[in-house]
């Protein structure tokens, strides 16, 4: 055998071009560098402006905005209301999430599969749509259930007013309890039956086993879920505005919105309030992380765990009743009433053949200008945001998992950071950053794209990371050593193998971007309305039938994409279960 000049180099010519210490070259560095720059611009730069803005920049510099944020009575009231909301939803999520999780994970209750699916459905439904549905159901005068209750019990007014603090807590609670439910469900599924059987062999009765073995084991999951529910409820601008504002109950996000919407806009105060909201979120997340990490006895998602379903005898009937009523209020009733309203001539009238119409769908999908523009903009924005976020997420994940680059962990942290930030906060940062030189894109559709990418890049990053993590790096190394360049190896080996995972990442960004409200409301302008803005505006105009038609359409799109994700994740490669080896 004739040896050797390295392929592609002429004999005698220097075999080596000077290379970087990491051994990375040309195109690779350019692509990865571009990704890092874009991430810094879209996430790092706006967050920096949030801090600068709170200090009064660019007009002045000082601490008066921060001081005002904490001394104005309106702001104080907003803080107290927000804390009350968080506490209320956190407790509510435990009260309904834990029994449901037990019922579906460990009991022999009938219909448990249905309950599980309906909890997922209530989580998928954008919470501002649930809020709209509850106005139709429990509006103080015309609400469907209120009229039903009045007829049943011969009352003259009420009896339930959704426009109240308990109304807000309830409507947000039936959305966010899904966090507690799913975390507890997973933890209960991960308790191996042998742990319970050991207790029983020592003479423990079933209730003793549950109390002494199961509950302590899943306690960290329950606490973590309650904290996540509470944190998420802080950020939900939609229900806070749709139900809270008519009731004159102000929360931090709606207060920030009002501060920015005032004339002249008080950006310094808005930034300061945003930092307060960030502080609450970060404190909650730190607590939650601490709980899950230090007190997690159960290996979540552990393999080979054997669980036993416990027979509940007659107790399973009240349990079924409880579970069904929870999912009735969280999913069936809101989606049902929106659907009925969308098909009714007038939502006040009872359902009858003469009251059925498709006119509202026609208005929502074809004739109403704002609505049609909203649909088109939402599709465009969600597609573009998902594409950019997946590219960024893939770059961050690649740097994290496949290189030894300094600062890659920091980059990963930056890409995950927006996950914990309320949309309102992200929007204030984006607004301050992009309203002026050097990138004055405020008022254009580009600022919405920037906001969506910044908000949802964590979802793409986590998904891409999970996808790359399953792929044995040796598969790429085999490509290199067989003679393929870095880019060719990417194209022929990594991308084809990661494609199902990256498609899931795309959808995971597309779905929330499609119905995004809390950041959009601060950043949209005439012409760049999205679906969520159309719904919000039409609701203000009192056109509940058209709003419902648009809501049904939105839920339809979101639900079908969520089903697609579920199906893709269930199929081998994207499931996160099977590592890809040779």
């Amino acid at each position, binding site marked *: *055998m004739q040896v050797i*000049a*390295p392929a592609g*180099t002429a004999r005698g010519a220097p075999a080596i071009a000077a*290379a970087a210490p990491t*051994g990375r070259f040309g195109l690779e560095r350019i692509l990865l560098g571009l990704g890092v720059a874009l991430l810094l611009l879209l996430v790092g730069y706006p967050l920096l402006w949030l801090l600068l803005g709170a200090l009064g920049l660019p007009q002045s510099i000082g601490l008066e905005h921060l001081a005002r944020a904490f001394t104005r009575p309106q702001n104080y009231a907003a803080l107290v209301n927000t804390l009350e909301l968080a506490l209320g939803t956190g407790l509510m999520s435990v009260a309904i999430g834990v029994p449901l999780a037990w019922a579906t994970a460990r009991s022999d209750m009938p219909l448990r599969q249905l309950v599980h699916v309906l909890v997922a459905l209530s989580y998928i439904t954008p919470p501002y749509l649930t809020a709209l549905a509850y106005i139709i159901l429990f509006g103080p005068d015309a609400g469907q259930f209120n009229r039903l209750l009045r007829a049943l019990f011969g009352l003259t007014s009420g009896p339930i007013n959704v426009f109240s603090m308990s109304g807000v807590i309830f409507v947000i609670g039936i959305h966010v309890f899904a966090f507690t439910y799913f975390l507890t469900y997973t933890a209960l599924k991960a308790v191996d039956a042998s742990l319970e059987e050991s207790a029983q062999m020592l003479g423990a009765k079933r209730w003793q086993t549950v109390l002494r073995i199961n509950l302590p084991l899943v306690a960290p999951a329950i606490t973590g879920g309650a904290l996540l529910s509470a944190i998420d409820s802080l950020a939900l601008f939609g229900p806070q505005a749709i139900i809270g504002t008519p009731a004159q109950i102000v929360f931090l996000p709606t207060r920030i919105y009002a501060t920015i919407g005032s004339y002249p806009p008080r950006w310094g105060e808005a930034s300061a309030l945003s930092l307060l909201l960030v502080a609450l979120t970060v404190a909650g997340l730190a607590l939650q992380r601490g709980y899950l990490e230090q007190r997690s006895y159960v290996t979540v998602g552990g393999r080979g765990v054997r669980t036993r379903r416990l027979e509940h005898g007659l107790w399973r009937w009240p349990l079924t009743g409880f579970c069904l009523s929870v999912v009735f209020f969280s999913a069936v009733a809101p989606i049902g009433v929106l659907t009925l309203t969308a098909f009714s001539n007038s939502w006040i009238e009872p359902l009858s053949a003469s009251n059925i119409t498709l006119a509202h769908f026609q208005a929502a999908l074809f004739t109403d200008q704002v609505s049609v523009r909203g649909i088109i903009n939402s599709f465009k924005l969600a597609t573009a945001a998902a594409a950019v976020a997946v590219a960024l997420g893939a770059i961050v994940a690649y740097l994290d998992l496949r290189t030894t680059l300094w600062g890659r962990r920091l980059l990963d942290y930056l890409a995950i950071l927006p996950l914990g930030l309320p949309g309102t906060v992200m929007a204030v940062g984006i607004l301050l950053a992009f309203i002026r030189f050097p990138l004055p894109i405020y008022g254009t559709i580009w600022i919405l794209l920037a906001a969506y990418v910044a908000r949802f890049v964590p979802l793409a990053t986590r998904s891409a990371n999970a996808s790359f993590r399953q792929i044995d790096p040796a598969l790429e190394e*085999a490509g290199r050593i067989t003679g393929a360049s870095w880019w060719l190896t990417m194209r022929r080996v990594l991308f084809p193998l990661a494609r199902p995972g990256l498609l899931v990442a795309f959808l995971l960004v597309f779905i929330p971007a499609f119905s995004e409200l809390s950041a959009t409301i601060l950043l949209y302008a005439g012409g760049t309305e999205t679906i969520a803005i159309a719904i919000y505006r039409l609701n203000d105009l009192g056109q509940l039938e058209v709003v419902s038609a648009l809501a049904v359409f939105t839920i339809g799109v979101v639900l079908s994409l969520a089903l697609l994700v579920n199906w893709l994740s269930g199929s081998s490669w994207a499931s996160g279960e099977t590592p890809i080896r*040779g």
Partner: protein
Amino acid sequence: MDFIEVAGIGKTFGTFQALDAVDLSVEEREFITLLGPSGCGKTTMLRTLAGFLTPDAGTIHVAGQLFSSPTAVLPPERRRMGMVFQNYAVWPHMSVFDNVAFGLQINNVGRSAISERVSRMLAAVGLEGLERRHPSQLSGGQQQRVALARSLVVEPAILLLDEPLSNLDAKLRERMRAELKTLQRQLGITFIYVTHDQAEAMALSDRIIVFNKGRVQQVGTPRQVYERPANLFVADFMGVVNKLPGVLIEHRGAEGHVRIGQQTIAARLGDGLSAADRAIVIAIRPEAIGLGPGAARDRANVLKGRLIDSAFLGNIVDHQVDVDGTLVRVQGDRLQSVEPGAEIELSIPIAECVAMRGDLPEHHEPEQDRS
């Protein structure tokens, strides 16, 4: 200059010194094995040779050309090397044919030439007829053959193998061992093979390079490394060895006298043993020891001991003998039986008693397990 010249290669991961001033040279067409326990640096060395890792110090030259240095690394795809990975790394989204054809396609080999060369290669590794299969439809052994065919079809000058047989069951492993050796002879390619299995290393290699804690301990043919280990680590790693602590009381040329407990024996002095070393260890392979004075040949030591226990293992009997408080393992004949408790004499040829330093040279302690 030899075909592959590795000079002073060092590599650290964080605070872990994976390679410490490694020098090696490999001749063309040699079958060379990097052998050592996990975390010893052998895989780091292989990945540095492949160009996946940049050394912190030192150089690698191949055929006189600089391949790696701390400031310049020839990318893997331009090294004309092949590599077979521990877990095969056969691409799951490509058929057997596409896996093997990959390297030819990217080098713009013509369609018909590809098909002909792939078929020839698949026949050579015994996979004819499986071209259209996907890796998920293949056994572990078959996937390993695909990986071999894929790296050999592009006619590399050097093939790197990273524990390629460790995921196969014992029988298949032995068969693949023989096939690998034959293939290497036929193709005349330089094989650099990484393993932690000393039997595999001895069966395959022209020369073995024993690694420990990032350093080369010894380079030699299998026989040299087994029979004349450079230090206690190599002696221990290459197979079962009895280590009898003793005191060197005199030495004359290549031999000396060593006191073990109440008895004195003659021993060959190992490499690197200096006159100043008094407390030493005598290394003796169990199969070198005969039971009873009758087993003595010329120039043999006789040690007295008491038989503690024997285990019948089929082809051999494993005896445990107490020699002045030290337990000595003796590999005995299955036809010879002794009752436990009996006082016996062990006869050991002087050449098989090697006096070595009891401690190992100073090393950086590994902080984590890396292979």
